């Protein structure tokens, strides 16, 4: 499994827990329109992701985040940055 696929799986698992009523969750799912992540829920989500991967996601990057795929991409970029 590629690294991104593994991140996607983790992120989806976190979202599944936070949004139990959500239907299908995939890379194209819109965090706010489909999953109803408001700003308070967003902070919960970000914290879970940060704790899981032990990284700090800067606030400014959240403003560009729209889909589950964007979040996976962001985590992957931070993990690569840490190795490189």
């Amino acid at each position, binding site marked *: 499994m590629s690294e991104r696929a593994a991140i996607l799986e983790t992120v989806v698992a976190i979202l599944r827990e936070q949004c139990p009523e959500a239907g299908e969750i995939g890379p194209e799912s819109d965090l706010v*329109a489909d999953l109803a*992540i*408001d*700003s*308070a829920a967003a902070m919960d989500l970000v914290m879970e992701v940060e704790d899981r991967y032990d990284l700090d996601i800067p606030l400014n990057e959240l403003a560009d985040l729209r889909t589950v795929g964007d979040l996976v991409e962001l985590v992957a970029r931070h993990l690569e940055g840490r190795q490189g």
Partner: protein
Amino acid sequence: MIRPLADHNRTLPFRVEGFRTLIEGLDYAARGETGFGFHDGRGRLVAVLTYGELAERARDLAPRLLGLGLARGDRVALVATTDPDFITLFFACQHAGLVPVPLPLPVNLGGREAYVARLAAMMRAAGARLAVAGTDFQPMLAEAAVQAGVPAALVPAEVAACPPRGRPVPFGEDDPCYIQYSSGSTSMPRGVLVTQRALVANARAIARDGLGLRPGDRCVSWLPLYHDMGLVGCCLTPTLAQIPVDYLAPTAFARRPLLWIELISRYRATISYAPTFGYELAARRAERGGDLARFDLTSWRVAGLGGEMIRPAVLDRFARIFRPAGFDPRAFVASYGLAEATLAVTFAPVGQGLRCDLVRRDDTLERARLAIPARPGEGVPVRDFVRCGRPLPGYRVEIRDEAGRALPERHVGRICIAGPSLMREYFRDPAASARVFEPDGMLDTGDLGYLVDGELVVTGRSKDLIIVGGRNIWPQDLEWAVERLSGVRAGDVAAFAAPDEEGREEVVVVVECRLADPAARARLRREVRGVVARTAGIDCRVLLVPPRSLAYTTSGKLSRATVRARWLRGELMDLDAAPPLPTVLAAPESAVEPV
């Protein structure tokens, strides 16, 4: 290894009187050892800025700001991150005779576009000549600066590297201090021009009369520095009273609310403020488990409340949950204030906890606007309001009816105020300024309330304003964002806040909808929810209603209050909630009677 922040001044006498400007207060505090501590998202101390270091750095930066070609009185927009750079630049402006304009931080997932537009509108209204933000936010700020025609958008290091020029002259007692953009909608932001005189008057009243600050007090704050409660209450007032403050960024609190509690415990803090929702977040997180006895909250003597309607039930729960940590519910202090008064107007007495006024919540309150005391168990619906205390010395609160007549106690009306820290005007907005002042010079706060034993009870904030999670959201901003969706027309949308089935405020967005296809309606519903979340970072209930369901005033203005009242009475029906009509009875859209 960072040297910890001193928790009191060893020899410098505690002083809150006699400062004529913010810089005078800072220069005095600079002779002691206290100042500000800054913590990262995991609660680690990452920087300390003593008042002495702050004064020195601000003095060094001031001529560099002038070196950028700024003239006295020019506005400098600063993205208000909770860090030494923002605070240093804010005070450097004071030294250089420049007016700082604190700007908000983005809070919404995918909200970049809305955020940039908001910054641009504020800078345009302020006529900012320079904009500064840390490297994280500078790209968005630069984009906004271009839109607003602001000549330069820099990072703090660029300001620090600029060659100094001229001799900065600090603001005097008759000068402005800063502009606070906390009211008005995104497209029409209203900046409160706070003067030196207003600031020192309000800070003195808060420190001396409201909180009774004393040597040894220590403050912990996660409140954003672009809000009056964060900036005035937890930065400028402490400076003018030499009190140490430990900061946590608002987003660090939002992610890990218990860090707030941990810092209070770690530093034996005595004073910390939050809107009710902050206590709610901490309580909710604590309920998920963990040993709360590891915290020691016995030092916390003022658990301040302000910024939104105070919900006593939530605070009772907070007190119960944190009892094992030694939290004393008598520490709750309710207060009332607004940016137009710099910050505080009334304060409940310290050390007595929340004192409530239980009133009948029937027609007498809603229609006759009378707050009749009730006893539980009388069989009538009741509502528990919090007493926010008496006006600070030198301040006056009057409840007025629509015609401007003063109302007696227990009559609900417009809360009007007077006092030494009232703003003189919204910056460059004479029309908006004129609207909020009464003929005799009192300021109409836009809030509703009543008096009891001379104490103010707030029953509702400004009738259209939506307050969720402690943030003020202007319904127009949501409506305009929704109107830009394809298939929605201008005037088709009404947004308001109303209690849901469990009494929590929820945001309801009503959209007149001409779509016959249920799938198209589902799509629209999703788009509305998405655009509202990106604009304001909130979830909302979307109601699609037949055309001509909304109500307008005689002058053609949308009457949100009427739409809201219909919603609360159950008179607004969602197109997809209504039972399907038998085909033979299904009328063409144009004949559907507005509900």
